[in-house]
C-alpha cells in the first residue's frame, strides 16, 4: 500500500488482553478494515503492543489472522521490556500511542483506542478527504454496550446497528447526556434526531473553548502536526486528559479545533475501561461491610487539574490570534521512543467471509452508500 490517508493508532497494553477487550478489538479491526474497503479509504491501523505485567502473549498471537485488505493495513509494533529501553516508562496508553504516532505513515493520524467502532458518517467524512493540515479534529462519542458479531464476518452496518441499540449516552467529557439507544435506533431518522438533540444539549454548537472539553480517546490531526507538537505529554502522571494538552499546544500554534458534525460520531464501548465497584467492597474479620480507598500508583492529571493547568497557561501568554504563534513544548526530542528500532508485524490475510462482503461490493462497483459527507466549520 502506498502512503495511507489515515493512520489509526491504538495502544494494546495489559488491559486490552482481557477476553472482553480482545473480542471488541477483533470487532474493531474487522469493522474498520471493511469500512475502509467499502469507502475506498486507504488507512492503516497501528497497534502498539506492550504488556506492562510482562505475562501476556504477544498481540499478534492473541489476535490471530489480521483482517487486512487492499485499503486497510494493520501493523503491530511491539515494545520490549523496560530494561531494554534504558528506564523509559512506557506503560501508559498515551505513551504507547506516541510510539505509533511517531511511526505512522498516514497523512493524518488519529489517536484512539480499540474500544471504538466508527459510525458510517465518520468514515464517509474520512473518505471525503476534506481534513485540513492546519487543524485538529474531534468527534462526538456515543457510549454503548453492544452485542457482538462473529469477528470473522463482521458487517459494519450490522455492527453499527448493534452499537446504536446498545447506546446509552453521548459524551463530551466531562459532560455526558444519557439517552435510550433502543428507542433511538428504530430508524435512521430517529437516530439522527436523537444525536442532534444530544449534541445541542451538550452545547456543541456554541462551545466557546473546545479544548476544555476533551472528547476522550479521539484526537486527529495531520502527521506533520503531531510531529511538530511532539506527541502527547510523556509526564509521569495519569494520562486520560493529555489530549487537552496536545490540543492547547496546537491552539498556541494557531491551529483551530474542529468538531465534526454530530452525524459523524463514533461509538465507544466505555464499560471496558470501568473498574468494577465490587472490588472495593469487602467483609472484614468482624463481619462488617467495608469499603476500600486505594491510591493509584501514579498521580492523576484529571479533569480539574488539566483545566486549571490550561488556565495557568492562558494567563501566562495570549492565544493566537490575540498573540503570535508560540511553540509550547512538553517532550524531549526522543518522544515516542524515537531512538529505538522496534519490531513490527503486519497483517497479510483476510478471513474469507469478510473478503466476500468486500469483493461483492467491489465487483458490483457500488459506491459507498448513504448521504454525502458533511462539511465542517472551525471552532477555536
Amino acid at each position: 500500500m502506498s502512503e495511507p490517508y489515515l493512520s489509526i493508532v491504538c495502544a494494546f497494553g495489559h488491559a486490552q488482553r482481557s477476553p472482553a477487550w480482545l473480542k471488541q478489538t477483533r470487532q474493531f479491526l474487522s469493522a474498520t478494515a471493511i469500512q475502509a474497503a467499502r469507502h475506498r479509504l486507504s488507512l492503516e491501523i497501528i497497534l502498539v503492543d506492550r504488556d506492562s505485567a510482562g505475562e501476556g502473549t504477544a498481540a499478534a498471537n492473541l489476535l490471530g489472522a489480521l483482517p487486512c485488505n487492499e485499503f486497510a493495513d494493520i501493523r503491530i509494533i511491539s515494545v520490549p521490556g523496560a530494561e531494554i529501553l534504558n528506564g523509559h516508562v512506557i506503560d501508559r496508553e498515551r505513551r504507547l500511542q506516541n510510539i505509533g504516532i511517531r511511526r505512522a505513515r498516514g497523512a493524518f493520524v488519529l489517536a484512539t483506542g480499540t474500544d471504538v467502532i466508527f459510525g458510517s458518517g465518520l468514515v464517509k467524512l474520512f473518505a471525503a478527504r476534506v481534513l485540513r493540515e492546519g487543524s485538529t479534529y474531534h468527534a462526538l462519542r456515543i457510549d454503548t454496550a453492544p452485542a457482538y458479531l462473529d469477528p470473522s464476518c463482521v458487517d459494519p452496518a450490522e455492527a453499527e446497528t448493534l452499537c446504536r441499540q446498545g447506546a446509552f449516552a453521548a459524551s463530551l467529557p466531562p459532560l455526558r447526556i444519557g439517552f435510550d439507544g433502543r428507542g433511538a435506533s428504530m430508524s435512521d431518522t430517529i437516530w439522527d434526531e436523537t444525536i442532534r438533540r444530544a449534541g445541542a444539549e451538550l452545547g456543541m454548537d456554541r462551545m466557546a473553548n473546545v479544548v476544555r472539553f476533551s472528547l476522550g480517546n479521539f484526537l486527529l490531526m495531520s502527521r506533520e502536526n503531531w510531529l511538530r507538537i511532539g506527541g502527547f505529554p510523556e509526564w509521569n502522571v495519569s494520562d486520560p486528559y493529555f489530549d487537552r494538552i496536545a490540543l492547547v499546544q496546537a491552539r498556541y500554534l494557531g491551529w483551530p479545533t474542529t468538531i465534526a458534525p454530530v452525524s459523524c460520531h463514533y461509538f465507544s464501548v466505555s464499560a471496558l475501561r470501568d473498574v468494577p465497584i465490587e472490588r472495593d467492597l469487602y467483609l472484614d474479620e468482624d463481619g462488617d461491610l467495608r469499603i476500600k480507598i486505594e491510591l493509584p500508583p501514579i498521580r492523576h492529571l484529571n479533569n480539574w487539574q488539566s483545566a486549571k493547568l490550561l488556565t495557568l497557561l492562558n494567563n501566562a501568554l495570549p492565544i493566537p490570534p490575540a498573540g503570535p504563534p508560540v511553540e509550547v513544548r512538553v517532550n524531549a526530542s526522543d518522544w515516542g521512543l524515537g531512538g529505538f528500532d522496534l519490531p513490527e508485524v503486519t497483517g497479510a490475510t483476510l478471513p474469507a467471509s469478510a473478503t466476500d462482503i468486500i469483493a461483492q461490493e467491489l465487483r458490483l462497483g457500488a459506491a459507498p452508500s448513504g448521504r454525502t459527507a458533511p462539511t465542517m466549520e472551525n471552532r477555536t
Partner: protein
Amino acid sequence: MTPPEDIYLSVVATSRNDDHGGKIMGRMRHCFASLSEQAARYRLPIQLVLVDWNPPSDRPPLAEVPDLGASHEFFRFDVITVPPEVHAALPLANDIPLFQYYAKNVGIRRALGRFILATNVDIIFAERLAEHLGKCTLEPGRMYRSDRVDTDIGDQLDTLTPERRQEACIRNLVQIQTRYGTAPAARLAERIADRPPVELPDVLGQMISALVAELKVKMPKFDLHLTACGDFQLLAREDWARLRGYAELPIHSWHIDSLFAYQADAAGLKEEMLPPDCAAFHIHHAPGWANQGNMEGGLDVALQRDGDKLQLSIVPRDMPLLVTDEVDRFITGIRHEPRATVNNRNWGYGDREFQMVTRV
C-alpha cells in the same frame, strides 16, 4: 462546669504546638476565647475537645500552654494528647506531622456532647451562629453545614479585643467558601466599609444569600456543599458513631472531609445548611501543603521560556493524597452499598486510652 451528660455540643479540633501556618497560638486563642464567651452568653453547654496530635518534644504540649483558655460553667475545655509513638506507627509519619482526620476521630470518639462539630482551630463562630446553636434545635439524621467566611485578621491577633472580634471578622472578609466554590469578596468588603457595626451581621447574611443565589444560577448541578467542609461538619453523636468518623488513611488530608460528606449522604443523612448569617469565620493564613503549589492534587507546574518557545512540565510531588478521581470512585461505591464504612470498629483508636486534661 456542666455535667458531661448535659453537654449539648462538642467542638472537636486538632493541633500541635508547631506554629503551622504562622501565628497558630494567636489564632487558637481567639478561636477558643470566642467559643468560651459564646457558650456563656447563650448559656449553651459546650465541650471543646482539642486533640494535641504528636506534640513536638521541644515545646510545651497544648494542655500546658498558658492563656489558651479554661473551663467555666457552660464551657468544658478538654485536651487529649496523642503521643508521638502512636503517630510514628503510621506510614509517612516522617512526612506528615499531623494526621488531621485520625486526630479528629480521636476527639469525636471521646466527645461527650449530643451533637459533635468537627472543625479547626482557626474557626470563629459568627455571633448569629452561636445564637442559633444556643436554641438547641439540632436534630439527629442531619449533617449541618455552614458557609466559611475567610477573614484576614492575622495582623490584628495580638491587639484585637473580644468586643471588636466579630466586627473585625466581617470588615476584613477576603473570600467566601460556598457550595459552588471559593468566591472572592473584595467588592463585598467595600460595600460594608461604611456600615455601622450593629448592621454588619444582617448585611453579611444578605451578601452571602445573594452571592449563593447568583452562583446557583451559574452552576445548578452542584449537590453537596464540599467547599472547606472539613471546617464545619456537625452531626449527632450517634450518627458520627454509625459512620465511624472520617476515613483513616495515612495520607495528606486533602478530600477526606468530602469522602465523609458523601458517606453521610449515602447513609441517608440530610445535608442541612444553617441560615446564611450563621457563618463560620476562618482566620486567613499561609496555605497548607496541598495548595502551596500551582495545582490541586500535588502537581507542580513549570513554564519556562526557551527563546521563542515555551517549555511546559509537570512534576508530581512525592506525597500521597486523594484527588477527585478517587473521590468519584468512592461515591460510586458508597452509593452502591451505603451501609459500608471505611474504618473498622476500632476507629478513633477506640481500644486505646489517651491522656485527657480538662483545662481549668
